[in-house]
């Protein structure tokens, strides 16, 4: 099937999309946007988190067809040219990045949290990001990054 979807503000088309294909696959393999990561394919790790019509989803659990005619925003669509989004900059500044594989999903999830709750408590941050696994950093600096981004935005 042909898929029509708006990604990061631009209308995109993908052809020969298989009915069982995930939105993550379309983004990574057909639209050249491998920023969203493929790490568990069952919605456990959050590495593939993207916005679908402004709502964060695990794109590995969304069938590509469900995105037909909808709006997707990925980690590649957060920065303004070379200027990082405040959440991205905050992750860099706080040292919340190590191997970087969980980072894109966490950045999107944190971006969404701050959009909904501009000044979250530590418990709210931990709970909101509990669906995004990180095996490297020990999480502490990710919290710092979200706190700092909340304070500066």
């Amino acid at each position, binding site marked *: 099937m042909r898929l029509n979807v708006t990604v990061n503000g631009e209308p995109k088309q993908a052809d020969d999309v298989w009915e069982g294909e995930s939105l993550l696959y379309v983004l990574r393999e057909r639209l050249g946007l491998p920023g969203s990561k493929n790490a568990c394919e*069952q919605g456990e790790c959050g590495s593939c988190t993207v916005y679908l019509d402004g709502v964060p989803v695990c794109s590995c659990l969304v069938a590509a067809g469900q995105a037909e005619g909808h709006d997707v925003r990925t980690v590649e669509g957060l920065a303004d040219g070379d200027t990082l989004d405040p959440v991205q900059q905050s992750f*860099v500044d706080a040292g919340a990045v190590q191997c970087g594989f969980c980072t894109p999903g966490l950045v999107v999830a944190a971006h969404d949290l701050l959009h909904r709750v501009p000044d979250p408590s530590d418990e709210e941050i931990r709970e909101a990001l509990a669906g995004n696994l990180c095996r490297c950093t020990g*999480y502490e600096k990710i919290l710092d990054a979200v706190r700092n981004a909340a304070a500066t935005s």
Partner: protein
Amino acid sequence: MTRTVDGEHLVGQPIDRIDGPAKTTGGARFSAEHAYPGLTHAALVPATVSRGRITAIDTAAAAAVPGVITVLTHGNAPKLNPPKRPTPANLSTLVSGTQVNYLNTDEVHWDGQPVAVVVAETSHAAREAAALVHVSYERLPAVVDFAAEEPNAVAQKGNPVMPGSAKKGDADAALAVAPVTVDARYTTPQHHHNALEPHATTAVWQGDELTVHDSTQSITWLRKHLALRFGVPEAKVRVLAPFVGGGFGGKGFAWPGTIIAVLAARATGRPVRLLLTREDVHRAVGARTPSAQRVALGADTGGRLTALVHTSVTRTSRVGGQPEQVTAPAQHLYDATNIRTAQSQTTLDWMPNTSMRAPGDAIGSFALESAIDELAGELGIDPVELRMRNEPERNPIDGKRFSHRMLREAYALGARRFGWENRSPEPRSTRDGRWLVGMGVATAYHPAMQFTANVTVRLAADGTVTVRCGFQEMGMGNATVQAQIAADALGVPFEAVRVEYGDSALPASVMAGGSMQTSTVAGSVLAACGKLTRRLSTLARRTGMQGRTPTEILTAARVPFIDAAVGSDTRLGALAGQARMLAKVVRDQRTWAKAACGAHFCEVRVDADTGEVRVSRWTAAFDVGRVINRKTAFSQLRGGIVMGIGMALFEEALVDRRTGRIMNPSLSGYHVPVHADVPPIDIACLDEPDPTMPLGILGVGEVGITGVAAAIANAIHHATGSRIRDLPITPDKLVT
């Protein structure tokens, strides 16, 4: 953002990592993210028996799936050179995860061994077809139950770096007459690394030239290994891994996925990408061995240790694997009059075990540091005080000097920051509503090592510096800290230094493992920068430009750049380097007991009715030598602690004792800590350089996890009065 100012040292500053923007914007490309024209996708077919022979493989249904290019089995796959037995004399043999010649044999050695691979135009087609491959087996008797095999364990042979056993005095006789004793059995399950990035390989052959993007911790050795297996000169093989999504030991060796991807690319003549599924990551990559341990302690009534016995049983495989230095902490931590350690192992029809963060030390420290806490309880002595009464002046087992040891200072600092003096001595004496509250403590300890790396450094007349070294970056921040070190050594700004890494075309480096990459590369970078500084002085004298900047000197000398190399990648140079490296390691080993150490303090809250455990507070004070970059180093230490929390409370491969099959090969079944499981973690480092290591670095990758599970078990005992000696400490163990 932290940036240098003139005259200030960069080493020691919390500089932002240089790859931060690439990783937060999705710009960093990992091994499964390289596009090649005509790229194909591969999927593995796992064996469903634990030992046997393949009698037939029916690939007709798989081959009929639209998009399938080929199905490779032992019947039609290209021939591969078999792996050689591991020997330190040939580094290429050391990274072979197993001794199996994949798709070149009809023998099956473990449940999950890949027995076929499907190559297709899309990953969907490959996976669908892989599920349709039908394999018939002749089953052979298999030994897969670790617990049942424990009585048949045989003593480890050991080697100069890792002795299988050690002895001082007569610990068993001393134990028999000691007035106060603890003698207990501790068990730990199989743990999986579960780095967020599943192992991935993109392999491209052009004639007999091979390019491989692989999520490896060992670029140089993997290159040698692939050259050996595929019968091509090393110069024709290039391994690239600038970004690796976490490793923790799980990407140190060449596992089946890498070899089979390269094989499939050779068979099809097309580029192949093989991305392991999370299930493959559990079934086709080695894991941390389970263990059964005994720790027996004898002390006088004043708390002086007279006897320390630590024995262990672990598992390896008939087709590979390695011994684990489970009892190593017992050789270094306590000044016991008599010590006996002994390691033994079983050999199973299983995926070989492999290194996982602090191999041996992580699980051994759980048993030893739990037992010390038990002894403190028997004696009625505070567990910190008991440790201080037994803190050695020299390495307990052999009297070697410590190159540097500040464990007393780490304990004092940690206790102060944590508020240890507020702990009531009695177990189950603090309650907060439904929560029972307890505090626990344990020692962290990990040996420090330095190997050798080849490095070239170029200083150009425009003031820029280029460091070239084939080290690996899995998130530790090595590129950032080596830039700090080079900038300091040459007196240039941080931004002037570019570090090239993650490519086997660069000067050969060590693997990332054993917490020794940063110190090893730093040693060579410093040596190369020293050479450049001397050449620069000569040029300055010659041109009358003493005291001027490098740019002014090189411009005056009309030299566009100067290079300095440490080590050589020629065949002779590599052999010489290897000999130098082994000599240095052995010499160091004979002279010094060298390690990073620290003290973990934690508070837990245990639900009195359900047994739910929450870790509510953590302080860790470390002696890791000099800290080059607080931001990256502390993050590594915290990550180690969080992995230790997982080890203490959640992580366990559930294994079918009849077949040896892992029953929870997913992130929904194998639980790792999430944000909501983790408390604020306070880290402090003494930041005192070790006098025998480059810049005084002792390594931070592994020491963080050691002792963590014991600190939690000890805190749970303090909270509840229940002593759990079997990991993970799940609620069922606390409510029965």
